[in-house]
């Protein structure tokens, strides 16, 4: 017995020692990993609070706080209410609903909302549904005079304990409202700011009291008229600028038929952070531009009849979001979690006021164009006319145990096609060559400049690009710098993880490759510069980028969180590197990349068909025409070709085709089986036709801006250019006449400038 015990003793000691070691290792690990995880964003614009002048009091009535030759700015402290008065015509825009205009139909909460210049949505615990405004929540405001405006320190008390500071300046015809990052304080543990709506009723109108419209940044631009909507709509427009954050919210359930086929298409994203209100009878309008904080901001454009009977548009900043953290793989256990850190950026909205003839959407577009040019957010590019004819190189289909190439268009095919087009008058074509890389279209990411053997190899591609360049055709190699194909590339590292630390997945119901990931922005950036360098060494400097130009997300990496601001900065510098060395085409770029591309492709021509949209306008086309050339989506897949063509005429967008040398039925077993109509022979005549017509039109508007866009009373659409050229477009089924110009049904006419 005793002997037994003695024998066991070392064992016990050993076990105890092992246990201690394990415990300490675990503790060290825990201590190591429980370091505070901070948002790495520390990009400072001008986050400091301005130097304050004397305290002012505007507790009883509106007080004039700034003025210049054209405008006066009045301020009423208790509601943080601003009033802008145009001295020339006396027109007024106000930021909160006045007592006279209160229709008395609203409950306490909505009354509080409509009469507050700042409305916050608070998070308590994990619920983000608490409305914090200046009327229903106890609050304190101290206002100080500053140059051309005021600075208000607002404290929300009671359950919330938030402090924010709002700087308001009147600069010429512009009103700049800024909430400095440093002034935002959440003083109570567990109570956070979810969203801040800045001047949610700026320039509001009641039902159809005033004529005019609101600008919606949906698709190419749209308008909601300020008429009585009779309560027909249940929601207004609400769009997160630059699209949804895929790193934050897992995509919501979309309607499917037969349990697998998605039936509803995604609405287009908000490409630029703008909104606008025009009172056309009063001849006063403003264009709102979100100048900072735009990457976490939604544009809200709400017509009357939705909760309250006022028309309003505003910017709503998302400071802190709530996301779902799954605890197991089957996602049966989840916890709702609040973001660790809030958005760290100034929240700035610039209202550019427009009067007289400029108080309309063309005025707004012109003001936005000037703003972009002044701030270097777009650069003047070569806007000469080109028809875009893209080619699909190789795809893959399943074969034996792997895949085999399906060669659709080789480098030599492209040479032949372009030569043939050239003979029929289609010259100076630009072409994006998709599926040129080794392994075909979906061998992603592209990390090297190596062409697929089936298209003629790297030598063939080089020869094609250089030879065609001499003939005036530019061929761009296509790079989806965002996606990773799970089957062709190892995915352990470098793929984007959402903020809940789950790998972001994009599943498609496709034949060969059905799972894709996103690359980490850093890796995208390395790949982009790698491709630029490697192609540059071989003398190739024409590249088209997609993916990184369209998407913006938050992500997590090794326990740290990175915001959309980080992603935006990384993409911007990567594409800046590319733009400095190459001619760059960007696919549907967001506004922060508008200074990085020599041309934009796949720009929307339409809106997303919301019920409450009254008119579609080519807003962004008016902004960009004459600065950066923009190209349409592919004509191939358009159902109504005539109308689509007229839209291109109207908006000055150049046409795009997607063709292959081989019959598209060869693609039936590939991931591209939805590209049902590609063969060049089917499109040759259309390309020639479009090229001839649109080239002639483009020559008449060469280098000019669009100065006016109007739908005349009889339905004829008139676009005026800065060189005096006028383009008339008739979408109707009967000929229309205006200003001595008769335009046939479903046709257009041009009146050349003098």
């Amino acid at each position, binding site marked *: 017995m005793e002997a037994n015990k003695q024998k066991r003793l070392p064992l016990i000691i050993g076990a105890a020692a092992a246990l201690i070691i394990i415990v300490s290792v675990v503790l060290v690990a825990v201590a190591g990993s429980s370091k505070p995880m901070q948002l790495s964003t520390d990009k400072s614009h001008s986050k400091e609070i301005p130097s304050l002048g004397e305290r002012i009091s505007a507790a009883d009535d509106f007080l004039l706080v700034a003025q210049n030759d054209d405008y006066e700015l009045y301020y009423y402290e208790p509601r943080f209410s601003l009033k802008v008065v145009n001295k020339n015509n006396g027109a007024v825009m106000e930021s909160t609903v006045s007592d006279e205009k209160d229709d008395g139909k609203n409950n306490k909460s909505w009354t509080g909302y409509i009469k507050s210049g700042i409305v916050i949505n608070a998070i308590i615990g994990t619920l983000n549904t608490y409305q914090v405004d200046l009327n229903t929540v106890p609050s304190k405001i101290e206002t100080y005079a500053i140059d051309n405006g005021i600075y208000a320190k607002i404290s929300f008390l009671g359950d919330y304990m938030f402090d924010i500071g709002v700087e308001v300046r009147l600069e010429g015809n512009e009103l700049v409202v800024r909430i400095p990052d440093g002034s935002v304080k959440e003083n109570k543990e567990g109570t956070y700011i979810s969203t801040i709506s800045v001047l949610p009723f700026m320039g509001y109108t009641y039902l159809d009291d005033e004529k005019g419209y609101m600008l919606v940044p949906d698709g190419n631009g749209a308008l909601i008229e300020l008429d009585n909507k009779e309560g027909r709509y249940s929601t207004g427009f609400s769009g997160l600028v630059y699209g949804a954050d895929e790193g934050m919210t897992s995509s919501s359930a979309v309607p499917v*038929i037969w349990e697998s086929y998605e039936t509803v298409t995604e609405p287009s994203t908000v490409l630029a952070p703008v909104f606008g209100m025009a009172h056309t009878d009063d001849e006063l309008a403003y264009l709102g531009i979100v100048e900072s904080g735009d990457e976490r901001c939604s544009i809200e454009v709400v017509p009357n009849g939705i909760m309250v009977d006022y028309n309003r548009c505003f910017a709503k900043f998302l400071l802190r979001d709530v996301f779902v953290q799954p*605890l197991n793989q089957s996602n049966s256990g989840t916890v709702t979690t609040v973001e660790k850190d809030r958005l760290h950026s100034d929240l700035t909205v610039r209202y550019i006021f427009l009067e007289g003839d400029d108080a309309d959407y063309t005025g707004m577009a012109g003001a936005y164009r000037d703003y972009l040019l002044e701030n270097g957010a777009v650069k003047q590019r070569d806007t000469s006319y080109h028809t875009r004819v893209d080619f699909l190189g190789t795809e893959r289909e399943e074969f034996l145990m792997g895949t085999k190439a399906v060669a659709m268009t080789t480098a030599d095919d492209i040479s032949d096609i372009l030569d043939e087009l050239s003979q029929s008058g289609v010259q100076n074509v630009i072409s994006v060559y998709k599926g040129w890389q080794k392994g075909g279209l979906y061998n992603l990411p592209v990390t090297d400049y190596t062409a697929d053997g089936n298209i003629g190899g790297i030598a063939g591609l080089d020869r094609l690009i250089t030879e065609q360049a001499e003939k005036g055709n530019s061929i761009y190699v296509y790079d989806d710098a965002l996606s990773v194909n799970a089957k062709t590339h190892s995915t352990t590292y470098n793929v984007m993880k959402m903020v809940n630390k789950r790998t972001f997945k994009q599943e498609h119901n496709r034949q060969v490759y059905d799972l894709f990931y996103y690359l980490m922005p850093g890796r995208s950036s390395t790949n982009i510069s790698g491709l630029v360098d490697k192609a540059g060494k071989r003398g190739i400097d024409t590249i088209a980028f997609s993916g990184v130009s369209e998407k913006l997300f938050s992500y997590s990496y090794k326990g740290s969180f990175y915001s959309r601001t980080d992603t935006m900065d990384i993409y911007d510098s990567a594409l800046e590197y590319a733009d400095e060395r190459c001619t760059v085409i960007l696919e549907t770029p967001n506004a922060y990349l508008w200074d990085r591309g020599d041309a934009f492709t796949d720009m929307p021509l339409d809106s*997303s068909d919301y019920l409450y949209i009254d008119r579609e306008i080519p807003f962004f086309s008016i902004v960009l025409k004459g600065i950066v050339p923009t190209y349409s989506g592919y004509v191939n*897949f358009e159902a109504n070709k005539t109308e689509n063509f007229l839209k291109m005429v109207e908006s000055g967008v150049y046409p795009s085709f997607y063709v292959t040398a081989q019959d598209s039925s060869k*693609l039936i077993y590939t991931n591209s*089986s939805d590209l049902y109509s590609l063969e060049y022979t089917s499109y040759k005549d259309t390309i020639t036709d479009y090229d001839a017509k649109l080239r002639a039109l483009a020559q008449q508007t060469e280098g000019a801006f669009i100065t006016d866009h109007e739908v005349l009373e009889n339905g004829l659409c008139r676009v005026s250019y800065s060189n005096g050229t006028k383009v008339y477009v008739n979408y109707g089924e009967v000929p229309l006449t205006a200003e001595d110009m008769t335009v046939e049904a479903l046709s257009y006419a041009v009146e050349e400038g003098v």
Partner: protein
Amino acid sequence: MQRLKRLLICFVVFVLVMQMRPSVSADTPYVTYTINGYGQIRQTQCAYLAHATLTKFGSEAMSEPSDICIAENGDIYVADSKNSRIMIGSADGELIGTIGEGELKTPRGVFVTDNYDVYVADRDAEKIFVFDKNGSKKCEYGKPDSPLYGDEVSFLPIKIAVNDAGIMFVVCESNTNGIVELSPNEGGTFLGYFGTNYAATSLTSIIYRAILTDAQRAKMVSNIPATPTNLTIDDKGLVYTVTRGSKNDTLKRLNIAGTNMISNHDDTYAATPAAVAAGNHDNVYVADQQGYIFEYNNEGEMLFVFGGPDDGTQRVGLSRLVSGVAVDDSDRIYVLDSDKAQIQIYAPTEFTDLLHNALYLYSKGRYTEAKEPLTQLLKMNSMYDYANKAMGSCYFQEENYAQALKYARLAKDHKGYSDAFWEIRNSWLKKNIMTVIMALVILWIAVTILKRADSKRHILDTPRKAIKKFKRKSFVSDICYAAYYMKKPSDAAYGIAAEGRASWLASTFLLLVFMAEFIILKYTRGFLTKSVMDGRYEILSDIGMIAGIAVAVTLCTYLVCTINEGEGTIKKIYTFFCYSLMPYILLTPITYILSHVLTTNEDFLVVMLGILIWGWVAVIMVIGLKEVNNFTAAETLKVILLTVFAALILALLIFIIYVLWAQVFEFVYAIISEGVYRLGS
């Protein structure tokens, strides 16, 4: 007066502008799908664009409208249920008139005949009202007094269709007997129930019914046939019905005898059908409550499905609760949304117009002309299999069988392919029959001469010797032994058991040949009997499956035999198992050739050959098992049963291990992510 007129015009224009909201967008918020020859759902060009939305007629709004009908002249009739009236409006949104105000209670169904008589099914009034062109009541029909109708059955008409003879087909709420067929004579004579659906009886429910007690049986879901949800009637007097929950029988086209003439096997049915409308080209539209619109051809094949539910984003062309559908002369579809109280008009695109044109020309027998729109269709979408199929049919009708074959192959159209192939084979045979016979005769003569020469001068001795020598090699002789096993399994198996004829090498070689033939046959057999899609290869899993089965069977048999005092070793069992595949190895080339030269009509030959091959394999395998182990017949049976049982247990075991492993994995994963989450916060 002049001024008044101008004002009036202004007003009309104003009203028009107010009500009509033509959307000029070419981008729709929904996707259009079609089905390809393999039965796969594929995206295609937009078939119909959201053209305009009618929220009002004049200044009159609808309230919970439940049915829509378009008259010959294009006027729209809407059963405005909550407002207890029928509204008549134009496609421009003008109000033409209302009918039945004060008379109707809740009109749920409306039908307009060619001479503008308006039939209204009023649920709460429990009557059918008939109004004439001017809106005055002509007559009404209440519950039929015929005993056949059933005294206890209520009469709650909700939908109605009327044929040229004035016979009414009425769908009644909570009447499960079928569509009520009423004759206009003598105030509504009950003619009987029409187009009754059959209750589906599954095998499980039969078994349940047999073993359950009465009380339990009463609790089961009742097996009452579903009543049609809605109906319509076309120019030819054919009645279309849609029935919810009837899967592939959701849409029926009933002739005057009530027989269904449409068959759909593709599962392309509407899950919650709300309404049906007959098109202008023998086509038919079904609208689903959720907002999906289906278009089928006259055989019930789906041409398109588009639209969808409004997910709250309020986009034009999506619906909340569809209650009616109608089609006008220009193929525009009018979809009535009872929740939104509006009519959404969809206009066909260029693509759809081409298809309809082709359908029309084809139905008129103008095959050559029909090819023109079909060519354009295929130019727009070369993967549209329906157009390929129609193209194949056109060529077939023109007796251009080579082209017909090509297009049928593209469309994966078995019937078309078989027919065209039959014609081609027929003409080939006609042309070449003499040559073939001559060749056979010459061959026969040559062989005879050779044989004679051989028997006289032994000229074939040298090759004969060489063959003999070759056969004596051990590997070759083992293979030959396998062929012998096929003929005399009993004797040969004894050889394997007792005379050392078992061979790893030969067996494995045969197994590999089997695999190769299996794979070649599977992927390259004739189109008509091929079960895999072109271009789809799963060779790795095929090999894995065959190898897995071979290993599992050998192993299980060995284990079971050992327990049962069998004499076979693994090698012997493996050998007889592989040798038993010999009939397949030798006969498969014949199957292969047959699959390429037979049409669907002679398909049974391939099937019979298959049965022969597998029967043979099974028989010699059993005999082999018996002989190799030296079992009696009873023992053999027992071992076979035990082997099957063992195989099942093996499968179960693997399954259990897999499930448990997945659970363990999930558990560990959950702990880790919980840990990461806790530490992270």
